[in-house]
């Protein structure tokens, strides 16, 4: 549907190495070229996004997959900082978390998360979810990367 020739850069903020690995495998099979960057806590995520050391050469991601319960800086705080930053707020943030509490869902949308997805515990289902994120966000949606 979209003819992106430039690979799409995705930032995954996830402290569970198993989930990160699975997401990577699922995205590797994508029809669309993409680069997945993985950071495992909220502080690293902000450094990556603000291109602070050691990420001074990091590219600005086209899409962010963000867990909520993260070490050092919580995902809710990361979301808030992204959506309050004039240069970052346009990047779609998909919340991908174990949580299904109404409070987390509501708070995330109120902080302008682009969508909220609860991670299924079943691994096959988890891969399916990552694939459906990929299908929706990389092929149907127009990402705000025109100004890259």
């Amino acid at each position: 549907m979209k003819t992106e020739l430039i690979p799409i850069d995705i930032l995954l903020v996830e402290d569970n190495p198993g989930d990160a690995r699975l997401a990577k495998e699922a995205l590797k099979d994508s029809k669309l070229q993409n680069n997945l960057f993985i950071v495992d806590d909220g502080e690293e995520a902000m450094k990556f996004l603000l291109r602070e050391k050691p990420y001074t050469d990091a590219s600005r991601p086209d899409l962010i997959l963000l867990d909520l319960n993260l070490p050092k800086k919580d995902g809710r705080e990361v979301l808030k900082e992204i959506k309050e930053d004039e240069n970052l707020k346009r990047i779609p943030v998909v919340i991908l978390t174990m949580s299904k509490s109404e409070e987390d869902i509501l708070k995330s949308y109120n902080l302008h998360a682009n969508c909220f997805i609860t991670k299924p515990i079943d691994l096959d289902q988890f891969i399916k979810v990552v694939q459906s994120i990929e299908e929706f966000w990389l092929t149907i949606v127009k990402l705000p990367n025109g100004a890259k």
Partner: protein
Amino acid sequence: MIPNQNSAHPINILLVEDNPGEARLALETLKESRLKNNLYIMEDGEEALFFLYKKGKFSDAPTPDLILLDLNLPKKNGLEVLSIIKHDTRLKRIPVIILTISSAVEDIIKSYDFYANCYITKPIDLDKFTEVIKTIEDFWLSTVKLPPENNEKP
């Protein structure tokens, strides 16, 4: 596919679209959904806001769970409507999907900067348009967790 994670009550969708053909197609497509949904169609930006603020004949209108919003609308354009929704503490949680003919970079960037939840360019081909509606339905009604109905839980 992932089982429906959203609640059992029908999902209320507001479509703001001034093209009756496209509105009709969206209605037909959503009618076939596995998930119970009610589609409300408003033809211009002003009417959409009356609906959202339950004004006049919309006093009994439900607060929608999801909004599909065109950009080029009569009376009040889609970006203005978007900006009003996303600045309103009671409405901003509602996901707004921009669904428009425009593929202008400026419109895309502006929409995301105004906190649109996602931006989709309408395909001109009608079959493809139906596909897009189905994909939206599939993703937003079954993969995504929509915000809970009410802000003030007892």
